[in-house]
C-alpha cells in the first residue's frame, strides 16, 4: 500500500499551465496578479457559471498560462465552485499545481495538500501571508514540512512581493508528494477492492477510489464514461457495505481521518507562541460585528458611502460632467457640428434633439450615471478588499432570515445598489436555488441601482427629510414583505449560514483600482448601448406621435390611480428600459415644478418598484430562463402600480403634509 514514490522532479516546460489552488481568502488572486501582470481573461468554466481567471506569465524568459481557481476547503466537492476546481485538477493538461496556503491557517491548507499528495500530482506549497502568521506568533518549520510532504515549500507575502523569486524558482522543480495516508481497516481493504476495478487515470487510482468511497456524486458522469455497468454496480456494493460499518457518512469519516493526519503533521512543524491577538485589525473586526458597536460602525460606513457617492459622486462630479463638460462644451459643440454637417432635420433630431442620442443618451449615461456608479464601485471595492462585507452579512443575518435567506444574501443586495444586473450574476454565491430566486426577485423589485438612487435621493432631498424617510420605509417594508411571502410560497429550502470572516485588512489600492476598472468597463459596455436603444425607442415614439397616444391610454392609471400628471407617463415608459432613466424623467418634471410633494413620493416609490430594466431582465433570462423572468416581470409591474396607488390614496386620505 505504501508504495513510496521516488521523488522525481518534473521541470516546467514552455507554454505549460500553472494552476493555483487553495482555500478561500489565502491570497491566490494576489499571487496570480504578481505572476501574470495585465494579460488577464475571465471566462465561465464550461457548463457552469463559475468564473475562472486566466493570464499569461513570462517567468525565467518562458511563457506560461496561469489559472486562478475558485477557493476550496476540501477536494470532495460540496459546491459548484469546489467541483470546478476539482475538475480542473482532474483534467489532463493541468500539470503544474501551486497550492497557496494561509500560513496562519496551515491546518485548513494541509487538508487539501494531503489530497493533492494522494492524487500523486506534482505540486508546490506556497505558504503565503507569512507576515500575519509571524505577527500572531506562529512559526512553521518549512524544512521539516518539505521533508514530511516531499514537495517544495516557499514562504511569501504576496502583498509585499516578498518571496516571489523563490516561488518562481520553485515552479521549475515540482515534485509529487511521497506521503500516503493509512486509513486503517476496514476502509483500506474496501479501497483495495475498488482500486482494482478502476482504469488507469490521470490522477492516482487510490485518490479516485477514495472519492468514490466518499460518495462523490459529481463523479457519476466520469464513472459511466470509463467503467462498465457491472463494475459500477460492484463499486456501489462495496461502498454500501463499508458505509454500514460506520454511523457517520463515509465522506465525513474520511475527512476526519485526514484531519487527524494533518494534526499529527502540525504537531511536528508548527510552533505557536501564545500571543494576545490585539492588532488594530482584530479589534476593529470585533467592533464591526458587535451587537451594539456594530451598528454605529455600520452607520459610519453608510455615512461615508453617502458622502462619497451621494455628495461627491452625484453632486460634485455630476455637476461638473453635466453642466460644465457636457452643458458647456460637448453638447453645444455637437449641436453645431451636426447642424452644419448634416442638413437632414430627421437626423439632426435623432442625434441632438430633445430625445437625441448625444444630447440625451450620451449625456445621461456619461454625465449623470457614470460618476455615480463609478464612485459606488470604488466604495464596494473598499468594502470587499478590507473584509467588511462578510461582517455586514453577520450584522444583517437576522433580517435576511425573515426572507428565507441568510446573511450571505447581503453581498448581491449591496452590489444591487450599484447595478442590479451585475448583482443578479453574483447570486450564484448563494447555495440553494430558492435563495437565488428570492434574491433575484427582490433585486428586480425593489433594490434601486446607484444611478437611480442618486437621482431619487436628489429629488427627495428637494422635498423634505420626512419624504425621504417615507420613501425608504415603504420600499424596505415592501422588500421584506415580498421576501417573507416568497420564502413561504416558493418550493425548496434555504441553506446554512456558515461564513468565514477574514481579518479586516488595510485595502490594497492596486486591487481596488483593478476591480473598479473591470466593473466600470463592464458597466459601460452593458449600459451605454441600452441607453442608446432606449433613447432611440423614445425618439421614434415621439417622432410618430405615439408618445401622446400612449400617454392618453395610460392616463387613467397614471393620473387616476397614482394621482400624477399625464406627462409622467413618458418617464414610466422609459422606466421599462432603465428604472434610473425613468427616475431621471421624473426629476425633470419635479424641477419644472409639476409635482407636489405627495406626487414626488408616490411616483418615486412606483418607479423604484417598477419593472427591472431591460439588461436586468435579460440577465434573469440568462440565469433562470424566460419563464421565470416573465413571471417576475408579470408580478412586479402591476404590483408596483398597486403599491403606488395605495400609497397615494393613503397619503391623501390621511392628509399627510410632506
Amino acid at each position: 500500500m505504501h508504495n513510496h514514490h521516488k521523488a522525481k522532479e518534473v521541470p516546467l516546460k514552455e507554454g505549460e499551465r500553472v494552476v493555483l489552488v487553495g482555500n478561500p481568502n489565502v491570497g491566490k488572486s494576489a499571487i496570480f496578479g504578481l505572476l501574470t501582470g495585465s494579460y488577464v481573461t475571465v471566462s465561465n468554466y464550461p457548463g457552469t457559471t463559475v468564473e475562472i481567471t486566466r493570464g499569461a506569465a513570462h517567468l525565467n524568459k518562458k511563457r506560461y498560462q496561469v489559472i486562478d481557481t475558485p477557493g476550496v476547503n476540501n477536494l470532495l466537492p460540496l459546491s459548484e465552485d469546489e467541483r470546478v476546481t476539482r475538475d480542473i485538477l482532474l483534467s489532463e493538461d493541468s500539470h503544474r499545481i501551486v497550492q497557496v496556503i494561509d500560513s496562519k491557517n496551515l491546518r485548513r491548507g494541509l487538508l487539501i495538500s494531503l489530497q493533492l499528495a494522494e492524487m500523486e500530482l506534482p505540486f508546490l506549497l506556497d505558504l503565503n501571508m507569512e507576515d500575519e502568521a509571524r505577527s500572531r506568533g506562529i512559526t512553521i518549520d518549512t524544512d521539516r514540512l518539505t521533508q514530511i510532504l516531499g514537495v517544495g515549500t516557499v514562504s511569501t507575502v504576496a502583498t509585499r512581493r516578498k518571496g516571489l523569486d523563490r516561488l518562481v524558482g520553485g515552479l521549475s522543480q515540482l515534485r509529487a508528494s511521497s506521503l500516503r495516508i493509512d486509513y486503517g481497516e476496514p476502509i483500506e481493504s474496501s479501497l483495495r477492492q475498488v482500486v482494482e476495478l478502476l482504469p488507469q487515470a490521470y490522477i492516482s487510482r487510490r485518490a479516485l477510489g477514495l472519492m468514490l468511497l466518499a460518495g462523490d456524486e459529481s463523479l457519476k458522469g466520469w464513472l459511466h464514461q470509463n467503467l462498465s455497468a457491472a463494475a459500477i454496480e460492484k463499486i456501489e456494493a462495496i461502498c454500501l457495505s463499508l458505509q454500514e460499518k460506520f454511523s457517520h457518512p463515509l465522506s465525513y469519516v474520511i475527512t476526519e481521518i485526514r484531519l487527524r493526519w494533518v494534526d499529527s503533521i502540525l504537531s511536528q512543524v508548527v510552533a505557536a507562541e501564545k500571543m494576545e491577538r490585539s492588532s488594530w485589525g482584530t479589534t476593529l473586526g470585533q467592533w464591526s460585528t458587535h451587537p451594539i458597536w456594530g451598528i454605529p460602525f455600520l452607520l459610519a460606513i453608510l455615512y461615508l458611502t453617502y458622502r462619497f457617492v451621494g455628495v461627491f459622486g452625484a453632486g460634485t462630479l455630476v455637476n461638473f460632467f453635466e453642466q460644465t463638460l457636457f452643458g458647456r462644451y460637448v453638447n453645444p459643440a455637437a449641436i453645431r457640428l451636426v447642424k452644419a454637417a448634416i442638413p437632414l432635420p430627421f437626423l439632426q433630431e435623432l442625434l441632438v434633439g430633445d430625445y437625441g442620442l448625444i444630447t440625451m443618451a450620451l449625456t445621461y449615461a456619461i454625465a449623470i450615471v457614470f460618476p455615480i456608479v463609478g464612485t459606488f464601485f470604488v466604495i464596494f471595492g473598499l468594502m470587499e478588499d478590507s473584509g467588511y462585507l462578510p461582517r455586514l452579512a453577520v450584522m444583517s443575518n437576522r433580517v435576511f432570515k425573515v426572507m428565507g435567506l441568510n446573511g450571505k444574501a447581503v453581498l448581491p443586495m449591496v452590489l444591487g445598489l450599484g447595478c442590479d444586473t451585475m448583482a443578479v450574476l453574483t447570486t450564484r454565491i448563494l447555495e440553494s436555488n430558492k435563495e437565488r430566486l428570492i434574491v433575484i426577485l427582490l433585486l428586480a423589485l425593489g433594490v434601486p441601482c446607484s444611478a437611480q438612487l442618486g437621482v431619487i435621493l436628489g429629488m427627495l432631498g428637494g422635498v423634505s427629510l420626512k419624504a425621504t424617510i417615507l420613501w425608504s420605509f415603504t420600499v424596505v417594508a415592501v422588500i421584506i414583505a415580498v421576501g417573507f411571502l416568497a420564502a413561504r410560497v416558493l418550493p425548496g429550502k434555504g441553506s446554512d449560514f456558515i461564513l468565514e470572516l477574514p481579518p479586516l485588512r488595510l485595502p490594497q489600492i492596486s486591487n481596488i483600482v483593478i476591480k473598479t476598472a473591470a466593473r466600470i468597463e463592464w458597466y459601460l459596455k452593458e449600459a451605454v448601448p441600452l441607453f442608446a436603444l432606449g433613447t432611440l425607442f423614445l425618439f421614434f415614439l415621439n417622432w410618430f406621435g405615439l408618445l401622446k397616444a400612449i400617454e392618453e391610454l395610460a392616463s387613467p392609471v397614471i393620473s387616476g390611480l397614482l394621482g400624477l400628471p399625464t406627462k409622467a407617463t413618458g418617464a414610466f415608459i422609459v422606466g421599462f428600459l432603465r428604472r434610473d432613466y425613468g427616475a431621471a424623467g421624473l426629476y425633470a418634471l419635479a424641477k419644472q415644478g409639476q409635482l407636489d410633494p405627495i406626487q414626488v413620493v408616490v411616483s418615486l416609490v412606483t418607479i423604484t418598484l417598477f419593472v427591472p430594466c431591460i439588461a436586468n431582465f435579460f440577465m434573469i433570462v440568462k440565469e433562470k430562463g424566460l419563464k421565470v423572468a416573465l413571471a417576475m416581470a408579470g408580478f412586479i409591474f402591476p404590483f408596483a402600480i398597486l403599491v403606488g396607488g395605495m400609497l397615494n390614496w393613503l397619503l391623501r386620505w390621511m392628509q399627510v403634509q410632506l
Partner: protein
Amino acid sequence: MSYELYELDELLEHIWTAREDGQVLLQEEILAPGGEEAAALEEGVRQGLLLLRERDLSVREAATPVPDGVPGFRVEGLMEVALSPEGERRARDIIRRHRLAELLFTEIFELDEAQVESGACNFEHLLSPKVIESVCTFLGHPRRCPHGKPIPPDECCNRFQVDIQPLVMRLCDLPLGEEGRIVFITPKHHARLDRLSALGLIPGSVIRLHQRQPSYVISIGETDMALDKEIAREIYVRKA
C-alpha cells in the same frame, strides 16, 4: 427486575402524571386499553393498588366517589390514591429517569417522537442512579423534558446550582471568550457535517466562542467564522 415491579413502576408513573395534569384516568388507561379484557384489567389495577399499599407506597384509597374536578388520581370515579413518602420518592425517580431519557434521545440522538417514547419507557426501568446522574450532568441538569414538563431535580442538580457546570455543553452555551474542545456534532443533515469538517470542525478541535448576537462568531485556529444558532446548538463541547 421482576415483571411485578415493572408494572408497579408504570402505575406510579401514571399516578404522578395524572396528578400533574389534574386529570381523571379511566381504569383502562392505567394499563393497556382494550375493551374485552376490561374485567382482567380491573383485576390488574386492583392488584396493583393492593401491591402499592402492601409495600407502603400508597397511604389512602378513597372507596367512595370523589367529586369531578378535584385533582388527584381516580379510578373510574371510584377510588382516589395518595402516595406515601416512599411511593412519592419512587414515582419521582421514575418520572425523572423517563424525562431525562426523553431529552437524551431527542436532543442528542435526534430520534423521532415514537422512538423517543418507547426508548424512554424501556430506559426508565434500566438505568442505575449513577448512570442517571451522569446523564443529568451531561445534559447540564435540565429542568424540562422535550414536552415542556418539569424534570424532578435530584441532588446533582442542586449541587449544580452552586458551582458545578455541565460536563459537556452546547457550543451556544459556552461562556463568551472561552475555549472548548468539540466532543461530538449532531447535525440535522449530512451536508452540514461535511461542510463543518472541511472547515476543520471535528471532534477534538478546539474552538472559542466570541459572540452570540447578531450571529454566533467562533474561531478555530486563526480562522473566524460566523454560524447560525441552529448549528451552534448541534456542536457539543467540553470546556478546555
